[in-house]
């Protein structure tokens, strides 16, 4: 079904041009937050208005769109944004990571390694990594301009002083191309290494805060740390209960009211395709027979 009252992909062409210009600037200055005139979208702030505007601006008729929320293709946010673009752009959608050319995501990077022809669009709530330490926007801009990033380490210092290790597990600050410190949006730090030298273009859109930033393909992305407390990826001590995958990011699922729980891949497409290929986890043995 298409809605002819709207322009292709909802936004008018002038708005798309404005957003594309911001995107080009963001790509030219990796990690730098480019202000843009964010529009009202037919969804509440916090639901991915920034990501949706970026996606709408880069979407072409031949693109194949995948939308994930916390890694899953079937949650409310993912389903409604997918439907939104089916309706307003009539583009083909998919849940398969490799079949997609544009992937809009909230909180995860797919487990499957992304390719050069793909674009990953992140929904970002608060783009400023220094915000919780320095509330003044004028000051944080100056700090970015002068590359004064000592404060970011104060946050990590506080973590170690309080918890004995760097307890930041999501929105873990990164240094992009050796210049700008960037908030990778609330993705788990598990996904930070995937940003480094990624073949796909990564775009970040923050609708409420009116900022767009980007990591061009094959850019160096380093997670900040201390020499004696190096960055560590979250590890899980068990495989996925459904597909048996080791080393994927797991979600905890509560099974009943007596404390039973299971851990399954947060990337549903990754988990399902593994199961189709005959992989089975500990809680999924009967189904295999």
């Amino acid at each position: 079904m298409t809605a002819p009252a709207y322009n292709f992909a909802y936004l008018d062409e002038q708005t798309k041009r404005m957003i594309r210009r911001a995107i080009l600037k963001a790509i030219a200055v990796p990690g730098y937050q480019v202000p843009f005139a964010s529009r009202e979208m037919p969804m509440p702030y916090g639901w991915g208005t920034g990501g949706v505007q970026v996606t709408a601006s880069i979407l072409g008729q031949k693109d194949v769109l995948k939308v994930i929320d916390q890694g899953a293709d079937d949650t409310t946010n993912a389903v409604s944004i997918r439907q939104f673009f089916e309706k307003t752009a009539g583009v083909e959608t998919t849940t398969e990571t490799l079949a997609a050319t544009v992937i809009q995501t909230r909180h995860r990077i797919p487990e499957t390694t992304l390719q050069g022809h793909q674009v990953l669009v992140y929904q970002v709530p608060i783009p400023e990594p220094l915000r919780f330490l320095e509330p003044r926007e004028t000051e944080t801009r100056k700090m970015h301009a002068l590359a004064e990033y000592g404060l970011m380490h104060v946050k990590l210092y506080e973590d170690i002083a309080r918890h004995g290790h760097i307890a930041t597990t999501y929105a873990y600050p990164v240094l992009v191309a050796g210049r700008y410190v960037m908030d990778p949006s609330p993705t788990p730090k598990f996904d930070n290494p995937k940003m480094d030298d990624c073949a796909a273009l990564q775009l970040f859109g923050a609708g409420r805060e009116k900022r767009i930033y980007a990591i061009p393909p094959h850019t160096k992305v380093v997670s900040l740390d201390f020499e004696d407390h190096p960055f560590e990826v979250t590890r899980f001590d068990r495989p996925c209960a459904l597909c048996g995958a080791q080393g994927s990011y797991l979600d905890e699922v509560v099974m009943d009211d007596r404390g039973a729980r299971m851990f399954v891949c947060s990337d549903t497409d990754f988990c399902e395709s593994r199961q189709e290929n005959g992989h089975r986890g500990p809680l999924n043995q009967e189904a295999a027979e």
Partner: protein
Amino acid sequence: MSTPLLQAEDLSRFYGGRIGCRDVSFSLDVGEVLAIVGESGSGKTTLLNLLSGRLAPDAGHVRYAMRDGTTRDLLTLTEAERRHLARTDWGFVHQDAREGLRMNVSAGGNIGERLMGIGDRHYGNIREAARGWLSRVEIDEGRLDDKPTAFSGGMRQRLQIARNLVTAPRLVFMDEPTGGLDVSVQARLLDLIRSLVADLGLAVVLVTHDLAVARLLSHRIMVMKAGEVIETGLTDRVLDDPQAPYTQLLVSSVLAA
């Protein structure tokens, strides 16, 4: 005579038609403590802000002997250079410790911020330095991970001093460092400042309205009134034998304890 550390030349600043301060000139040597005294509104704080680059003068120059030996006009420094200077070779102790501290960051983080700002990336070293400075300003090392919100006024002020001194600055600006503290705490803080200044060979520009503080800490004194310097000289000379009528009034109005 070696080159002075800080030189002010005909510094003026106007707030519209009103005078902030006018035609102030002086020079400060390495390790010298200069007190600027005067009543409220006499331009002390304006002058301090001009000297520390926090305010741009309408006329005049401030020259500073940088660590690399060159003497630079503060107005010609780039903002990056000025901020770097303020973070490494200078300190600024505010009257209200809340302005100079990050209240939601632990004492250790507060002291370590400057070190991290100049590129120190070793947690253990930063923590050791913070611990060392905490004990130097007579705060129990067990308070290293407490936030300044849990500190008393005197402790906050001492923490602020530690935070400033961790990069071994050569010049510290102090704006009423003992203001708002009770008398016994004031005495202890003054003692601490005096010994730190002597041990580290710090040059200090100290703004105060308290002549006792000036007497205790400073080598030289500058008396300001209505934005202008009306008398300057060695501290004991000015306080024991004031020349200007206003200084005489100021000295005689101090209550003898």
